[in-house]
Each structure stands twice: as structure tokens, then as C-alpha cells.
């Protein structure tokens, strides 16, 4: 039987449920009543002890949301979501935490299973890396978000010394209201789009980062999101500000238990860089993708946007998207400052019945702004994988430059890859380049690899890792290794 035929057959049989993070943690939780109303919004705001201005902000978003309709333009299909059949807030039952020791041990265990280092001590005591090939031990500060609340943020003290604020956004609203007020909703306004507006009304937690002028954040910052509770949406909100000349690298990872029903995840991420500042934002998204029949899985409707507000500033998005039943996500850059730069590096893998509609927007407003887009889409099974991107230069954005390369790789003949680029130049000095390729993983290449002793799956993993190498190189070392493994796992069962 030809390899491609085997691939196809195997894909039909696969259990995408090799999902390794599909366990559930049994803990007591504190939930808002089911459904969405002004009362739900008030409930969440009260739970968070929010000031009145924040509640007003949420209610305004909620009222606007009532007037909006779900977007329909993406190449994704799903049954109508009943927004009244969801829980909008769920928190592990526990009081305010003074230290990690007070975190529910079940939750700590969950993060341990996921391989997320929440215990600072272990890292401080220098647990030696086994693989021996990585960079010398680098410490990463972690903020862990479990369902709707942040359960632990590590390395607070050391960050404080550097002047970096890294805390749950719910705390930042209370402790740094001026900063939050100044920036929240300025990149993704409450009226932006259906899902972002919903998020603005009901977001419960997420991370807040502020790096003061001239400070290079002394370690990688990381947030780990976990949806645990049944029928719960997760609506996290992240706001990162790099003040003049500051630099920060931020990583985000996500997992969820296996469930038959679909769960909604509608996050908003806002990044702001002032003059000469840089933010590097990396995501490894591995939400539960649903089973082999396409049942269950996360609906991942996310709005991520960065604003290069200052001159010579830079925002770089790197994403490895392997999970979710549906991904609807376009991390974008507004290149407002002169000479600012936006980058988007993406690996999007779809297998089984997954649907991905993802890409970026590079909006050139300032002079001599540059952007670079490298997108690698890999489709297997009966999945659909769409790159959708917008590159636009404003009338005044003289000297704007963009380079885009979109490559798609197909495994089997039941999947689809689509590229939908929108390119607009409103001034004659803009120079935009767009390259796109679509290829099938060739039987000759697979046979060559297996003749040399690799199994079919190892062969596909190797070829795919080669295909995405340019993007993997953009990830911080620790993430690159993890992402490489994740790519192979996501494609397990995609070949015979």
C-alpha cells in the first residue's frame, strides 16, 4: 500500500486522544451562576474586589456586546454557541494566598504533571538539566492561571528589585490602577470585535507586565493557562507594557482536559512598546483538540494585538499552534512609531478534525516601518488550515517594507490548506513582498527516511521539523525543544 494511502487510512482510525494533557483535576470550585447577564459581570467584578471604574468599563463592554454579532468570515464551521449555557467564572475554592504552600496541592500536582515549574525552590536550588545540550539554566518566572484565576506567580521578589511588575491582572487593577487605566483597552478597544468585547465584559484573570524605562527584564516571563472546570469559558486578559528602551520576553502555554463538549476560550492580549522598546511574545498553544470524530475540544477565539507606539520599537509574535478544535487568531502589530518593526512567526498544525484560521495583521502607520511574516501551516487528517493575513501601509507610512512567506505542507489527501493574503499599499514608496508555497509531503522523501531506519512517524516528524525550522529558531531555547516534541506528538497517527 502506498504510504500516502496508509497515511489516509491511519488518519481515519486515529485517536487524536493521544492528547497527553487531557486529565481532570478534582478540586472544589467557586462558580458564578450559569449564563451571562449584567449580574454575571457584577458578580465577577465583585469577586475581584474591583474599583467602580473597572465595573463600569466591563458593563459598557457587555452592553455593546449585546448589539454585536458573531463574525462569520473565517473558514471555520461550528454549531451555534449558546452563550447562556456557559459558566463565566470558576475559581478553585481557596482564600487569598500568601505563598505557594497555600496553593491547593491538587493544582500544584496538575502543573507538575504538565511540567510547569511553579516551585521556585527547585529552580533556585539549581535542578540540573538532564539533556545537557541546552543553554545554562535560565530561570523563568511563571504565572499560572487555573480556570478563571491566577493561582501562583513565582519570582515576585527578584522581579520587583528590577522594577518589573509581573502579577495577575486582577491584582494590578487594585495595585496599579493608573497604569492599567492608561493602557487597558488602548490596543484592543472594548468595541473591537465580538469575542474581544465579550472578553472585556467577563475576563477574570490573566497577566499584567510593566517593564520600566531602560530595563531589560532579567528573566523570561511565562504564563500557563489551564482550563479545568466543565462548561467553563476561559477569558483571560493579558496586558504587557515595555516602557522606553525596555525589553521583555514573554511565553505562554495552554492545556485543557479532554471533554466531550466544546469549551470556549476567548482571550485578549494587548502589547504596548514605547520608544526603543521591544516585546517578544511566544505561544505554545496545545488546548485539547477534540477526539477522532471531532467531538469536544476548545474553541480558541483569541484577539492578540501589539502596538509599536514609540519610535524604533519592536514587537515579535512567535506561535506554535497545535491544539484546539477551532483556532481563530491573528496576532497583529500596529506599526505606529517611525522605524518600528513587527514580526510574526507561526507554526500551525492541524490534524484530525481541527480547523485553523490564523494569521496576522501588519498595519504600517509610521515612516520606514518594517514587518516580516513567516507562516508554516501543516495540515493532516481531515483538517482545514487557513492562513489569513493583512499587510497595509497608510498614506503617510512612507518607506514601509514587508516580507511575507507562507508555506503549507499537506499530509494525506483529505485535508486542506488555504492562503488568504490581503495587501494594501496607500503610498507608492511601500515595498511588499509575498511568497507562498503549498506542497505535499512526498512519498519518495518518506521512503528515503524509512530506508535509513526511521519509522514512518519519525520520518514525518523529521520532515515537518525541517519544514518549520525557521520558525522554531525564533523560540526561546526551552520552548523550542518542547515545541519540537509537541509537533511530533501532534502528528502522531498522521501516517501509517
Amino acid at each position: 500500500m502506498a504510504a500516502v494511502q496508509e497515511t489516509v487510512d491511519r488518519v481515519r482510525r486515529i485517536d487524536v486522544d493521544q492528547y497527553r494533557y487531557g486529565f481532570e483535576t478534582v478540586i472544589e470550585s467557586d462558580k458564578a451562576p450559569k449564563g451571562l447577564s449584567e449580574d454575571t459581570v457584577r458578580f465577577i467584578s465583585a469577586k475581584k474586589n474591583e474599583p467602580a471604574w473597572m465595573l463600569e468599563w466591563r458593563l459598557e463592554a457587555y452592553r455593546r456586546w449585546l448589539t454585536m454579532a458573531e463574525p462569520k468570515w473565517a473558514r471555520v464551521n461550528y454549531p451555534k454557541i449558546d452563550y447562556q449555557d456557559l459558566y463565566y467564572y470558576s475559581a478553585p475554592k481557596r482564600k487569598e494566598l500568601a505563598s505557594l504552600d497555600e496553593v491547593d496541592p491538587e493544582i500544584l500536582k496538575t502543573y507538575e504533571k504538565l511540567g510547569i515549574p511553579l516551585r521556585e525552590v527547585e529552580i533556585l536550588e539549581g535542578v540540573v538539566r538532564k539533556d545537557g545540550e541546552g543553554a545554562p539554566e535560565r530561570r523563568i518566572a511563571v504565572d499560572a492561571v487555573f480556570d478563571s484565576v491566577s493561582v501562583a506567580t513565582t519570582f515576585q521578589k527578584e522581579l520587583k528589585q528590577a522594577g518589573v511588575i509581573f502579577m495577575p491582572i486582577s491584582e494590578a487593577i487594585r495595585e496599579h490602577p493608573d497604569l492599567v487605566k492608561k493602557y487597558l483597552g488602548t490596543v484592543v478597544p472594548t468595541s473591537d470585535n465580538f469575542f474581544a468585547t465579550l472578553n472585556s465584559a467577563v475576563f477574570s484573570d490573566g497577566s499584567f507586565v510593566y517593564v520600566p524605562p531602560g530595563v531589560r527584564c532579567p528573566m523570561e516571563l511565562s504564563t500557563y493557562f489551564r482550563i479545568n472546570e466543565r462548561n467553563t469559558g476561559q477569558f483571560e486578559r493579558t496586558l504587557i507594557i515595555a516602557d522606553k528602551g525596555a525589553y521583555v520576553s514573554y511565553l505562554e502555554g495552554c492545556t485543557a482536559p479532554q471533554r466531550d463538549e466544546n469549551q470556549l476560550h476567548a482571550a485578549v492580549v494587548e502589547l504596548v512598546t514605547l520608544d526603543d522598546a521591544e516585546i517578544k511574545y511566544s505561544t505554545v498553544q496545545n488546548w485539547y483538540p477534540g477526539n477522532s470524530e471531532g467531538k469536544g475540544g476548545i474553541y480558541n477565539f483569541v484577539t492578540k494585538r501589539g502596538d509599536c507606539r514609540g519610535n524604533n520599537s519592536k514587537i515579535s509574535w512567535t506561535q506554535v499552534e497545535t491544539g484546539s478544535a477551532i483556532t481563530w487568531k491573528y496576532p497583529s502589530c500596529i506599526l505606529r512609531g517611525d522605524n518600528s518593526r513587527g514580526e510574526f512567526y507561526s507554526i500551525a498544525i492541524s490534524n484530525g478534525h481541527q480547523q485553523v484560521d490564523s494569521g496576522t495583521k501588519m498595519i504600517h502607520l509610521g515612516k520606514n516601518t518594517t514587518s516580516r511574516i513567516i507562516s508554516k501551516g501543516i495540515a493532516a487528517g481531515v483538517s482545514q488550515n487557513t492562513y489569513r493575513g493583512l499587510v497595509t501601509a497608510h498614506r503617510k507610512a512612507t518607506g514601509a517594507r514587508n516580507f511575507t512567506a507562507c508555506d503549507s505542507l499537506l499530509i494525506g489527501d483529505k485535508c486542506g490548506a488555504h492562503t488568504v493574503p490581503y495587501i494594501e499599499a496607500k503610498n507608492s514608496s511601500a515595498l511588499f513582498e509575498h511568497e507562498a508555497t503549498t506542497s505535499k509531503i512526498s512519498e519518495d522523501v518518506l521512503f528515503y527516511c524509512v530506508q535509513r531506519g526511521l519509522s514512518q512517524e519519525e520520518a514525518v516528524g523529521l520532515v515537518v521539523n525541517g519544514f518549520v525550522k525557521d520558525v522554531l529558531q525564533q523560540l526561546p531555547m526551552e520552548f523550542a525543544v518542547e515545541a519540537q516534541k509537541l509537533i511530533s506528538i501532534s502528528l502522531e497517527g498522521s501516517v501509517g
Partner: protein
Amino acid sequence: MALLEVKDLQVRVDDREILHGLSLTVNKGEVHAIMGPNGSGKSTLSHVIAGKPGYEVTGGEILFNGEDLLEMSPDERSAKGVFLAFQYPVEIPGVATMTFLRTALNAQRKARGESEFSTPDFLKKVRAVAASLNIPQDMLRRGVNVGFSGGEKKRNEILQMALFEPSLCILDEMDSGLDIDALRIAADGVNALRSPDRAMVVITHYQRLLNYIVPDFVHVMSRGRVVKSGDKELALELEASGYTQFEDAA
């Protein structure tokens, strides 16, 4: 026991029979040349031995050290010691040659229940073999066969042959696309690997290659069968008189 025994092999591709009962016995230490015109089934034979998908074996058997080769997946065959040097080695962009060599070698070792090579041991081994084949270090850092010349691609095949130490090497049209200097380097590499524990099957159109890799046996294939076998003199005879005399025999 013979290393490789092909008995009355019948093979179809898309309802067309390509091999009509081919038999061939290869013992350890021997070098066999298989010659024949285009379409005689030479490459089909090499592909079926290596387990390439797309061929249907309708009759006969292939034994390798007495084991049924046709029951094994291609990677199992590789781990057992079957190596096919490709006529057209493929390119694998983004995968460094060094990474590929290491992944493949360790996969074979793992399948045989042997321990994987450590990084320093592996590097030492590769560097030694590469030096003997005149393969520069920077070639090992490049993507597998990406941007390699014809000669470099063939040398990369021989490098793998030397590294994996297979007991059966099948060289499919190794001379195609090589100029005379490149051919000499490749042939020297192959000759260095001749050993009493290893057999080689050299598939070629032309006698030229056999001036460099001198075979113990020569087989002439025509229309899916071996029509004549002999020693190296047979190749010279063919060079003089061509393949047409065998067309009728088939």
C-alpha cells in the same frame, strides 16, 4: 545460508507485471552486478528488496539471512542490514545532514536493541568516515542533499553506507549523473567497504562502472527475468555486443 535469496519473484505495478519469476542468490563477501536495458526491471528489484510502497508481490519470496524479508517494514529491513543507495537521493530541507545521520543510526541501533551513540562518539565516527570520503564538514551542516551536486549526493549515500555498516548494499545506478572524477571517488568509497561480511548488488546500465567496482558475478536482466549470469567477462561481452542479443532470450 545465503545472505539474500530471491526465489521466483513476481511483481506487479498497477496491474502490469514487471518481474516474471526472478531468482538471485547472493552470499556474503560477494559483489554482484545487475545489468540490463531500461525497463528490464532492475530498479524494481532494488525497490522491492528495500520495501518501497507501490509494488505488489504476486509470487515468490525473498529471504534475508533465512528470514522472510517481505514480511518486514522498510525500517525493519534497514535495521537488519539492508541498504539501498538511491539513484536520485531526495532533498530534505531544514534537516541538517548531521541530524539526519544521527537520527537514522540511532533508530537502527534502537531497533536492534543496541544502545544509542552518545554525541561525542557519534561525531568522532562521522568525522572519521567523512574525512575518508573527502566530505567537508560544512556539507554535514547543510540540509540533507539540499544544494548538493550530483557527486556530493552520491558521496552522501556512501557516507551513510559506511556509517550504518549494512550487510547488504544495493547500489542503484550509482554512476548516473557523475563525471569520471566523481565516479572514481564514489567507487573508491564503495571498494573500501568491500568485506567478507558484506555483499553488494551493483545495478547499472554501463560496463564503465564495473571497471571501478569489479564484480564477482554479472547478471543480465531483460523483460523482468535474469537471462544470463556469468563472471566479469560477461560485462565486457555486453559492452561489445549490446543488449539486443538477449531480447529474444527473454
